[in-house]
């Protein structure tokens, strides 16, 4: 019987030996990239992300050039107040004479760290809970979903504010954990529905008939088909984590030992420079907006990759 497909796996091994599917992962990646590439929004989002990533990486450089560029502790000996952009300080200085540009770069690093960690935690918990609830059903399902309901209606910001006033200043990592614990519920609902629909697919039943254990079915059949959705929610989760951190920092409940964009906004406000120093106000504000936008755009483009039905056919002319 002839294989009629235009793409056939390479057969460069000697007869009788079958080669591993490892290479095919890469080919998969290649195909997916081709689809992603066609989406202008996705490319824009990716471009922005790359820019912010470079900023984050570059954040280590300024203090090495001169200690006065250190975002927290570096103070320009000649400047003791907020001044506009100059050759020495590309975005000017804050009220203490610290370099704004290096603060901006550090803020990018912090945003990535917090955003990605918190989102990852939320999605990991949500996926686990959703899968278990959907797959086992009945009592387990009811219990977990009621728990999710409770968590979902908790007013997140309020809870964090209460916690920080009870426990004193919260560190960045405390914040990450709390955000993760508050945000898993929405994800779990979606993952649960997806699991419910996957559970009754014939290939899952075929695995049961072959004798697969629950664990195997969950890990091998349900999880891989649910992961694309999780991944999508992660990109959305990053945006909300970053925004929460910014809001908290702005309100004064952030971690004072870390420089983040929200912190910068707080300093501007607290020191009365809101309307006096646009070179100081605008950069962090714009960065917050752009980074959330970029994650969102990437998420939307990913949707097309993961959901073949959304793709548009490319025509040869």
């Amino acid at each position: 019987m002839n294989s009629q497909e235009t793409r056939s796996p390479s057969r460069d091994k000697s007869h009788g030996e079958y080669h591993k599917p490892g290479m095919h992962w890469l080919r998969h990646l290649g195909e997916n990239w081709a689809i992603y590439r066609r989406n202008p929004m996705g490319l824009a989002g990716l471009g922005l992300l790359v820019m912010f990533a470079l900023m984050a990486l570059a954040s280590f450089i300024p203090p090495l050039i001169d200690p006065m560029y250190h975002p927290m502790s570096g103070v320009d000996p000649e400047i003791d107040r907020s001044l506009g952009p100059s050759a020495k300080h590309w975005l000017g200085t804050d009220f203490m004479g610290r370099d704004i540009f290096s603060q901006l770069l550090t803020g990018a690093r912090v945003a990535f760290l917090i955003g990605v960690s918190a989102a990852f935690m939320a999605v990991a918990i949500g996926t686990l809970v959703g899968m278990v609830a959907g797959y086992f059903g009945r009592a387990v399902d009811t219990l977990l979903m009621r728990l999710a309901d409770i968590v979902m209606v908790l007013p997140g910001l309020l809870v964090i504010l209460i916690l920080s006033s009870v426990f004193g200043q919260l560190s960045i990592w405390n914040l990450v954990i709390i955000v993760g614990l508050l945000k898993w519920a929405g994800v779990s609902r979606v993952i649960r529905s997806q699991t419910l629909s996957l559970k009754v697919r014939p290939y899952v039943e075929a695995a049961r008939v072959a004798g697969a254990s629950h664990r195997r079915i969950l890990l091998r059949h349900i999880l891989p088909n649910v992961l694309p959705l999780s991944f999508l929610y992660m990109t959305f989760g990053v945006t909300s984590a970053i925004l929460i951190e910014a809001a908290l920092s702005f309100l004064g409940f952030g971690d004072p030992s870390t420089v983040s964009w929200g912190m910068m906004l707080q300093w501007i406000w607290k020191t009365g420079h809101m309307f006096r120093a646009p070179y100081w106000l605008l950069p962090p504000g714009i960065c917050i907006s752009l980074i959330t936008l970029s994650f969102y755009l990437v998420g939307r483009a990913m949707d097309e990759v993961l959901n073949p039905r959304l793709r548009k056919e490319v025509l040869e002319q």
Partner: protein
Amino acid sequence: MKGPENQPVVIFSQVTKLYRRRQSLLKRTGVDVKALDRVSFQIQPGEIFSLVGESGSGKTTCGRLLVRLEEPTSGRVIFDGVEVDSLRGSRIKEFRRRVQMIFQDPYQSLNPQLTVFQTVVEPLLVQGYGSHREREQRVGQMLEEVGLRPAEDFLFRYPHQLSGGQRQRVAIARAMILEPTFVVADEPVSMLDASIQAQLLNMLLDLKERHNLTLLFITHDLATARYLSDRICVIFKGRILELGPAESVIQSPRHPYTQALLKAVPTVRRRKEGLPPPACPVDVLAAPEQGGCPFYARCPSCSGRCQEQEAPLQEVEQGHYSACFLHYG
């Protein structure tokens, strides 16, 4: 576990399956759907037994009960002398090795994220068979046996790169790789084109011979059932209406339902002339439960008695049973 030669390998004994519809968490009201109603039949070792019925007749449910995807509400499903529902622990694993299933929809029965190799090797992994090398060999052999040659061409493809017929071959390879003794085939060819159907039907026959299988073949198509099977069992609305040797059921159908089915089976040669009687749609949706024969609403030869009582399966010829009052004196 082995009994005398003529011990039936599968016994369905008064099996009833209800799907309960709950109105609320607490109350158990609402209409129950009766998928199977006191169904009883036996399958002999080495035979191909067809269960023929329309959609909603309960035939797929029988298959699912046999492979333990669901439990009967009452009655017993017995495989090789042991009640399927009572198996525990390692006995289940052994059972799974011996009883396998081929599903109907080639587009849904393979995990789209797994390659052909990963799909077919899974039962081996689950049962802890051999080394990696041995598993590879076995998968390759199996693929060639179901007609996917050369195996290397297909091992690392994904389902979306295969045609419907090829996918179904993969599904069959997966079912056969553990060398089961009993296979439930749930409409394995009905979603495929005619020429591919024929290829796969022949392949099933060959596999059955070569591996000494017993097959439960579930279908809506009497012609296919006749081609493959030794015995045919006709099921309608969860009840067995006729059961007997394939040729006997086809050439001399006793139950009015079987007769109606046979008349409606399209053929490729005979052309029907003449017009049907003026339109009077007789397809009625599942009527609420009432006593009596399930075919009552559509039967041309029914009597008042048929509405009240249900005729039991009666032997009308050697090995040929029918459930109809017409056969009573």
